């Protein structure tokens, strides 16, 4: 299971990559692994505002339906529309495929998230 450095992680198995005041959000390798073959993605709408923890989309695998949350508050400035045609790419490259980009409204929230080391420990605990 891959966990990348320099990303922020949530307990719901989402990652955040920060570039300036923009946050790319996606699902982790652990998440895609547990969902299994992903066959459907529902994306948020551009310009909608969300608070940290809100549901911004839905990811469905053959067997499961999972809400996608945003680990940070902000306004959606872009969504990864390619996922609608190729949802399975989330299985193959979860860190290379963001779900959406949000303009951060409260960058301090990033301090509530885990770093790679903490998230590794968190996943190990979840597996027990």
């Amino acid at each position, binding site marked *: 299971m891959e966990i990348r450095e320099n990303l922020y992680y949530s307990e719901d198995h989402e990652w955040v990559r920060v570039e300036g005041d923009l946050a790319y959000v996606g699902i982790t390798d652990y998440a895609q692994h547990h969902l*299994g*073959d992903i066959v*459907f993605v529902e994306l948020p709408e551009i310009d909608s505002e969300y608070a940290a923890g809100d549901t911004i989309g839905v990811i469905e695998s053959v067997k499961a*339906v999972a809400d996608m949350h945003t680990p940070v508050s902000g306004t959606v400035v872009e969504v990864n529309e390619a996922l609608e045609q190729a949802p399975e790419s989330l299985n193959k490259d979860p860190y290379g495929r963001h779900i959406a980009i949000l303009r951060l409204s409260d960058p301090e929230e990033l301090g509530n998230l885990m770093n790679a080391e903490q998230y590794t420990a968190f996943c190990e605990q979840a597996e027990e």
Partner: protein
Amino acid sequence: MGLRRTPLYPMHVKYDGNMIDFGGWELPVEYKTTGILAEHHQVRQKAGLFDVSHMGEVDIRGEQAEAFVQELVTNDIGPLKENQVCYSPMCYPDGGCVDDLLVYKFSKDRFFLVINAANTDKDFAWMQEHKIPGVTLENVSDRYAELALQGPLAERVLQEICDTDLKEIKYYWFLPGVKVAGIDCLVSRTGYTGEDGFELFTSPDRACELWEAILEAGRGTILPIGLGARDTLRFEAKMPLYGHELDRDITPLEARLDRFVRIDKPSFTGREALARQKEEGPERLLVEFEMTGRGIPRAHYEVQENGQNIGWVTSGGYAPTLGKNLGLALVKSEFARPGIEIDIIIRNKPVKARTGQGLFYRRPR
């Protein structure tokens, strides 16, 4: 926890199964090296091996065995020959389903019923309650491991390690005492995938050996398949699943299983109610549909037509071989015909779908 394990549990560990609680059984939903979609395609294109040992089996013997089974099930077992199998619903007096099952006829005085795992205790209690003199019943579920080998390569691979010419076992027939890799098996040409294939009943203590022998005979063309793909395969082939298309409150006529309900039989449990329903026409019927909007239909989602509730989805999902999002819905019968625009309510939003016919998978023959 207290989950039950089948005799093949060591194989699931060895082949890296992703184990889940399946109605109280610890079984693989998929194997980690493949996953549901790859396993689904494996069975359609080559062949796959399933552990279905959780299924229940009931042995019925005695001079009244045939009369007893005939009263229990809605299909007519009268014309069944020795070593033939038939599918049938088993109903309550009101026409609702106790279960659906396979009847194996050894002889007029010996039958073998294969029933759904989750219903085993309920079914056996129901059978005992309705037992007649001249019949003995035994729940022999723990005495058998059951393996299913399904897919276009199933016959070729199994033949390599089998002492019997498998061409002699026709679709929905069986043979007891077949030696597979030297192991005594009851082999039937049955399955739950929409493909050709076999189900093998054997002694629990030889089950792992049999599993390995079949994989070995396949030399890489056979892979273990989990319950996730078992469900997508059966759904894509439009095979009913108890608790979904059939249930305590759904009759086999509503599920459009008319050809397995022989009203012309003189007597069986549920006959009066089903005869009446047949005559009046059911108020609800199962209908196929395909999503035309973006969304995956799932069991229990509401179905609407023009803003009005008309029923619910019994099974739904992505059909991997067809590449479509399909569903089965139990709806008011006036809407149970092809070509109707309906809405599936997905997360409180209506998503477009259209009813149809022949939307599901049929094996090219």
